[in-house]
């Protein structure tokens, strides 16, 4: 297990820049953060129409989206077999024939994301591929189990071989503006993660306002988050462009103030290739090219890959594709 995670470290943020150590909780900073919903929605709605990526470029961008994908299964009916199948897809997300046609030898997804009990199966199946296994944790999705248990869950998952931990924050701390509690909670989770990377899931669909999203993002980063992530996929509203805009702007602000680059992971609701292009464009515009890689950007998605495969086949053949032509995950 430990050797495997060492191997995977080459993919992780500290390989290209220093890992976020966190900073002291700065409440002045937090309370100065504003987010004007209407203006944010206007900007978000023009991101897709201000940029257009066509032909070869579109193919390349879609491949990049695959590389940035946390292929995910988070269902109550997950089995070892299901997870093995997903891992196989993670290793070969598109057919070799398509890949060859696009002039590439190899491509793999950013990570495989599962519940704790599936970690070992996933780690075994992905052995030698360099694909990290991410585990959702801390009483996912609601995060309302006892704190010591939530911390212990992280430790269990790390020792089971997960090199990325997707934690859920206590939404109540945000809703009651108890930034200190949120900060300390995330700090404790971060400590439990050790060398594994911590993605803090804000569950933005339950935070009420974009202002809360912005402030919670900042507090999570101050407490040492490696990634901030929108949602569990279980809230009524998951990743949206306005929420993403707010979170990536928070990341930019944190980078400008501290020099640490924090990753971003929108999760849930992104299922179309075109949406993926829009998200990549958002990252490119708001954060810059250096964020356009799996070290700093991930899609949490389960059905997105299928649509991308079809679009890539269309790019090569000129004919619209069908889902049965691509291997299931």
């Amino acid at each position: 297990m430990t050797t495997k995670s060492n191997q995977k470290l080459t993919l992780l943020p500290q390989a290209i820049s220093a890992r976020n150590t966190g900073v002291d909780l700065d409440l002045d900073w937090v309370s100065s953060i504003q987010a004007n919903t209407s203006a944010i929605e206007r900007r978000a709605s023009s991101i897709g129409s201000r940029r257009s990526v066509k032909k070869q470029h579109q193919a390349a961008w879609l491949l990049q989206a695959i590389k940035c994908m946390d292929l995910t299964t988070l269902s109550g009916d997950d089995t070892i077999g299901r997870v093995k199948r997903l891992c196989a897809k993670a290793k070969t997300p598109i057919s070799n024939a398509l890949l060859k046609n696009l002039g590439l030898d190899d491509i793999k997804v950013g990570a495989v994301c599962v519940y704790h009990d599936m970690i070992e199966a996933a780690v075994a199946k992905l052995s030698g591929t360099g694909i990290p296994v991410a585990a959702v944790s801390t009483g996912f999705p609601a995060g309302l189990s006892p704190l010591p248990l939530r911390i212990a869950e992280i430790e269990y998952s790390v020792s089971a071989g997960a090199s990325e931990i997707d934690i859920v924050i206590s939404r109540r701390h945000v809703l009651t503006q108890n930034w200190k509690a949120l900060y300390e909670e995330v700090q404790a989770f971060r400590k439990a993660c050790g060398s594994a990377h911590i993605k803090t899931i804000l569950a933005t669909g339950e935070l009420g306002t974009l202002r809360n999203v912005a402030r919670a993002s900042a507090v999570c980063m101050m407490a040492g988050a490696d990634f901030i992530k929108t949602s569990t996929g279980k809230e009524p509203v998951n990743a949206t462009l306005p929420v993403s805009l707010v979170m990536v702007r928070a990341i930019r602000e944190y980078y400008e103030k501290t020099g640490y680059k924090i990753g971003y992971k929108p999760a849930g609701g992104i299922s179309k290739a075109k949406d993926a292009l829009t998200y990549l464009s958002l990252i490119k515009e708001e954060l810059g090219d250096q964020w356009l890689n799996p070290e700093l950007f991930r899609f949490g998605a389960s059905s997105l890959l299928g649509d991308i495969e079809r679009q890539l086949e269309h790019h090569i053949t000129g004919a619209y594709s069908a889902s049965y032509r691509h291997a299931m995950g």
Partner: protein
Amino acid sequence: MSVKKILGDMDYGLAPESPEEVKKWLRQHNSSFGHFIGGNFTNPKNDFKSLNPSNGEVIASLSQASVKDVNNAVKMAKNAFKDWSETEPHQRAKVLYSIARLLQKNSRLFSVLETIDNGKPIRESRDIDIPLAQRHFYYHAGLAQIYKTKIRDMEPIGVCGQIIPWNFPLLMLAWKIAPALAAGNTVVLKPAEYTSLTALLFAEICIEAGVPNGVINIITGDGSVGEMIVGHPDIKKVAFTGSTEVGRIIRKSTAGTGKLLTLELGGKSPFIVFDDADLDSAVEGLVDAIWFNQGQVCCAGSRLLVHESIEEKLHKKIQNRMNKLRVGAPLDKSIDMGAIVDRSQLSKIKKLVSQTEGNVYHAKCELPKKGLYYRPTLITGLSPSDKLMQEEIFGPVLVSTTFRTPKEASDLANDTKYGLAASIWSENINLALGLAPKIKAGVIWVNGTNMFDAAIGFGGVKESGFGREGGWDGLKSYLKYSINFPKQKNNHLKSHSDKETFGLDRTAKLYIGGKQTRPDGGYSQKILDASKNLAGHVPSSNRKDIRNAVEAMNKASSWSNSSGHLRAQIIYFMAENLHARREEFEKRINQMSGRKDGKKEVELSIERLFTYAAWADKFDGTISGVPVRGVGLTMREAVGNIIVFCPPNEPLLSLISCIAPAIAMGNRITTISPFVASLTATDFYQILETSDIPPGVINILTGSHLELASSAASHMDVDSIWSFSEEEITKTIELEAAKNIKRTWCQKNIDWLDNRAAGEMFLDAATETKSIWIPYGEG
């Protein structure tokens, strides 16, 4: 380029919109065009070329309209007017609806053609210009259908001459043609010479839409064609969008002709950012404000006013954002800024920027090697006196200065001859909504910018012009009052029996700033009554008395912020006091007119005071159905300082009919009564003195209109001139008003005794509408 390589650098690559359909359309016309007159295209004459500003290529050759063409077009429009103005509202609505539909069906063709001709990014023509043009026709199809249920006593004007600029060719055409047609007018429109093509394509769809021949005429050419349109005697209304310089020329050339005028002119609109704003969103707002359409937007937020404490932070954010802007081939779908419309415009921008002493920051973006491009630019460290803080650049250049307090922000915002638009960025609702009324501009955007919609008025104050486009107010700009004003009876009877002699001399003075004052010049005029007996002496005012009255009006500016309720109470009190002294006024009126109808006039005067006291808190603004989550609020604000040249007849009633609506709406007013009516006016200030009118709100002058017209109309601190005096002063007033593009209302033959002369006609003249966009919502 290989996929592998792109994967490494993640560039956007090219995403060009195909020009093929446009080329096909141009080929169908052999790339040469005539004028659209009376429903037909004239033979093309190849007089000038339309160029693609992004590569300098010739797109098409166009015809320069001759005198004959202009006359023909106006004639066709005139001939078509009767039928069109009498066409059933529903039929007119159907035609406008059909135009809207056809614009929609051909939307991409229009978008691509616009981009090729103008140089603006395809994203903008596709997502903004063309959809807004469609929206305008849809909206006005609706107004054509229903406006008569709401607007009464108004009728279409006649042939409208419309001259539009090159920055939003089709959109400006829509803003002009849709309301004109909805109201029942016919039009002769001239697009800008650089950008005539979408107007000609529009002409084609008019045929398809079933626009009756002659209702829409489109002629092309340079400014001389515009001049011919403006000068044509059968043009009854001129609507112009363009520079303040040309607007001023049009104001002068139409002076005294009776032509109605809408001018939508230049701007130097402030973009105000407070320290509590969502700064990233404000920066994005600036992208839409000044780097939209290459900054060639009359209402561009070109003057950044930033809270001093966040200056450095905001400038840094702006610079970072600027560096992300993509400037290039306008047909590329991933381009933020296209080409500047013409070489002359580009040179003008370069020259203005080269002269500044500020710190110039050019975006570090790539520019195409060929074509007319200019980098997004930020100039900081300027003070309000710098030329670039005052002059419209009409390019992608933002200038910036700082403020400390909300008061200073509004002072700086208003420190300009223009008054078109303003953006206010703050998360504090008190601050933002409190500032909106303080800024002198026709349009205010709160936490937003460059929002437009057919349902709400757009237009300026001060030297940004007058008249509104969009909404009900925009439609009214294409209607005139149809109240049939009878010719005035001769009120000066020769014989008079009820003679009166003076026991004690009573000194009539001027009434300025709440005080009775002697005229600056020290001259008085003898006033004879109807029987040629000396009735008294009244002061002859001169230009210095006007100056003093304007200063008094300025000092009374807080009147505009008083509540409608307070103003109503004061006007009611005036009525009460007039009633108490009614016999004195009756006597005076009878004495001067030689008739015995003074009683009736006084009674009507009291009634009129009641009417406007009633209106004081009821001439409400509106909330328009704009397509944002939020409100598009139209507030009615006082115009400001008004000078009125009062008529000679019904001296009391006409005086009150001017004063009451003006002060009811919060204006300050100075009346100038002609000598013949002056003793009533000077009697009236005694009513004012007992009616709690704050000093300076109402000032009463007497004197020669011919001598005073020029001084009053040229005064830069006067916002509007009304004249119900002799027609011979109209021209002087309208000529002099061009100096600061002030509003004028010159109307002869109002029947003051008719109660229809009291009401909206005056209230409209006494108010300026301000459109305030307030997007809202959180979570």
